[in-house]
């Protein structure tokens, strides 16, 4: 413990500072024209968050493995004997532990750099107060999520980042494609969110009722401070219920992290501003799914079945998404597919039981992916298009952007001695090591290995198409020039981080963060042969990309050829989107039509029929009331006669024939 440890008690300042920025920009942004419509306020908020976040992370590094939890009880249900022996408490709190400190670094640093970059990138857009307010709210929610100390609070912030993502994808809401992409992202992640919530319920229901978990329920379902996963201590971690709960967690993570089969929304999310893609859809929010898996794996634990499912989803997704990136011609979508693919690597690592290796890749990936997006944003800012077919020859015009993109691409493809190389080979090595105990992991390891080649190929294809060659292929493109310093500075800082952040793992205090929860990265697992193989694959990918696109020309594929058909399948994303649209438009809509018919005609029809019968009946009954005294007298007399008949004739008859018993 050092003098920094006081910072651990002030971790709540991180979300609070951006929340203040959100309130100021949200309420008064329209009057802050001189502060870039509130942009500088948002930058200041993000800066304070970054400073506090880094101090907190530094304090956590100095006191390795400390677990600082500040919370208050939000809702308390008293216990009752039998069902809930200890009662249930729901708490809200701030938890700083190695895992959240690691995430805090990523979110606050990338958050600040992207916010700064936005000042230049978004300068010509309208609706800036809305943009900066929503981005500040996003940072608040994301930091809140990272600092959550229990699953329910986690879920609240999880939903909040989801809705911010929805707002920001739909930032250009006048554009129909952006509006529909926002809706798609919201709906597809919602599938995962609902399953995630069910998973939380299942954990709560399983643990709140009886057994050792009841104490956990009483303490507010907090992420416990223990040396081993919670489940390992109480059940051997192998019951069917817990397997199902683990799979539901996986479903939630798959929705947020765009894993197969809920991957469709992320490429479409590129309709938002590039800064949003960099921050939300590359570095932070989509990583929340992986973070969820890591938290669950460290604090609760997964069963063996869950682990296999996670490995399968991760391994398959990383290959599957990489294939789609190979042919795409939209610079942002190429990077988006690569994000899905890299998230697949992380999920694969968490599933293979090396959680912190996955988190290590999350850490390095956040920087080089944010860098790639910001560099792509710089290109888009300069030439006004996202179409790779029109670009070309930008290397001389945009030297800083070009270098930044190159560094990002090298790190992404895992070129030796970049961050990406360290973390990706660590994943491959760890998964390879895990295959000895779990032979079923083999196919997914091979897919992941193959993806190394595809990754190098598609990202350098994009690089050569954008920067290679003598001049833009579309002569109509405007003269390109670098952006202002607020755009160049984040590129330079992120370039350094993209190349070097991975080396932090060799700095003992930082390594203690990675060692602080679960299995730490260990470079002994990465044997030299595997690194050599993956380096060969990287060189092969880059070489192929250079051979095909190095001269800055598009490769013409003859129409109707086999290659063209493959390209068409890939461009149509294996028809998944079409399939989901079919489900949405035909199956769900058809069912809704049927339900509508039942509602409208069967249920409402019955109710209206009853209503009409009463209305008509009372119309008839009204005619009885004539207002004529003689008629009323007749009713009185008739009633009296009827009553007498009943009393004197009917009742004796009944008694005589039926009674007597």
């Amino acid at each position, binding site marked *: 413990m050092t003098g920094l440890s006081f910072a651990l008690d002030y971790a709540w300042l991180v979300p609070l500072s951006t929340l203040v920025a959100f309130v100021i920009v949200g309420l008064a942004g329209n009057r802050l024209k001189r502060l870039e419509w509130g942009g500088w306020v948002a930058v200041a908020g993000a800066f304070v968050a970054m400073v506090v976040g880094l101090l907190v992370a530094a304090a956590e590094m100095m006191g390795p493995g400390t677990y600082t939890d500040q919370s208050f009880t939000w809702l308390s249900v008293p216990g009752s004997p039998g069902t809930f022996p200890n009662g249930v408490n729901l708490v809200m709190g701030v938890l700083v532990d190695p895992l959240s400190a690691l995430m805090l670094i990523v979110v606050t640093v990338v958050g600040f750099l992207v916010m700064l970059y936005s000042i230049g990138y978004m300068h010509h857009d309208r609706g800036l107060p809305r943009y900066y307010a929503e981005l500040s709210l996003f940072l608040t929610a994301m930091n809140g999520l990272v600092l959550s100390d229990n699953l329910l609070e986690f879920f609240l912030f999880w939903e909040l980042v989801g809705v911010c993502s929805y707002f920001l994808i739909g930032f250009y809401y006048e554009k129909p494609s952006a509006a529909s992409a926002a809706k798609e992202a919201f709906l597809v992640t919602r599938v995962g969110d609902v399953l995630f919530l069910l998973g939380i319920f299942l954990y709560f229901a399983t643990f709140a009722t009886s057994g050792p978990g009841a104490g956990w329920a009483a303490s507010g379902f907090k992420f416990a401070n223990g040396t081993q996963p919670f489940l390992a201590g109480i059940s051997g971690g192998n019951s069917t219920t817990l397997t199902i709960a683990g799979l539901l967690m996986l479903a939630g993570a798959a929705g947020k992290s765009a894993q197969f089969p809920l991957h469709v929304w992320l490429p479409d999310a590129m309709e938002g501003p590039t800064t949003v893609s960099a921050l939300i859809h590359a570095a932070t929010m989509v990583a929340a799914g992986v973070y969820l898996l890591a938290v669950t794996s460290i604090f609760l634990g997964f069963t063996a079945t869950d682990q296999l499912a996670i490995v399968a989803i991760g391994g398959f997704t990383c290959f599957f998404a990489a294939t789609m990136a190979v042919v795409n011609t939209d610079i942002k979508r190429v990077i988006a597919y690569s994000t899905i693919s890299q998230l697949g690597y992380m999920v694969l690592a968490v599933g293979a039981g090396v959680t912190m290796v996955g988190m290590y890749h999350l850490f390095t990936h956040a920087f080089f992916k944010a860098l790639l997006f910001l560099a792509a944003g710089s290109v888009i800012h300069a030439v006004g298009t996202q179409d790779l077919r029109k670009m070309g020859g930008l290397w001389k015009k945009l030297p800083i952007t070009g270098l930044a993109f190159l560094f990002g691409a090298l790190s992404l493809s895992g070129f030796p001695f970049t961050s990406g190389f360290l973390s990706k080979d660590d994943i491959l090595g760890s998964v390879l090591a895990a295959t000895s105990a779990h032979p079923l992991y083999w196919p997914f390891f091979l897919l992941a290995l193959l993806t190394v080649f595809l990754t190098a190929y598609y990202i350098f294809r994009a690089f050569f198409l954008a920067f290679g060659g003598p001049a833009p292929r579309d002569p109509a493109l405007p003269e390109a020039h670098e952006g202002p310093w607020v755009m160049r500075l984040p590129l330079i800082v992120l370039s350094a981080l993209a190349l070097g952040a991975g080396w932090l793992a060799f700095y003992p205090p930082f390594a203690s963060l990675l060692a602080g929860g679960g299995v730490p990265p260990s470079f002994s697992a990465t044997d030299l042969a595997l690194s050599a193989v993956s380096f060969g694959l990287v060189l092969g990918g880059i070489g192929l990309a250079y051979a095909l696109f190095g001269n800055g020309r598009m490769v013409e594929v003859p129409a109707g050829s086999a290659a063209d058909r493959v390209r068409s399948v890939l461009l149509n994303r294996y028809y998944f989107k079409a399939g989901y649209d079919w489900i949405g438009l035909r199956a769900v809509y058809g069912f809704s039509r049927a339900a509508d018919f039942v509602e409208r005609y069967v249920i409402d029809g019955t109710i209206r029929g009853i209503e009409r019968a009463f209305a008509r009946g009372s119309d008839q009954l*009204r005619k009885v*009331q*004539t*207002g*004529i*005294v*003689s008629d009323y*007298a*007749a009713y009185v*007399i008739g009633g009296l006669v009827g009553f007498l008949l009943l009393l004197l004739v009917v009742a004796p008859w009944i008694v005589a024939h039926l009674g007597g018993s």
Partner: protein
Amino acid sequence: MSAFSPAGLLALSGGLLAIGLFGILTRRNFILLLISVEIAINAAVLNFVYFAAFSGSASALSGQAIAVVLIGLAATEVAVGLAIVLALNRLRGSINVAEANALKS
């Protein structure tokens, strides 16, 4: 008293009641309606008187007393009824009960 048999007396009061009810149901003139009501009440009064006479002396007085009360009741009822007739005549210029149907709706 022996000149009248109980059956004959009951038939007389039954007939009076029937005449009264018939009048109530068929007359549209308010005054005739009131007269019909009086006839029906008198049928009841007659019944009280007969049964007081035929029964033992102990309950005889109470039957006679009720008959007297009923006569008084009928008188007050006619008084109120005739007041209504006057008011109705002033209001509508007619004492036809079929036209006095403002309470219909």
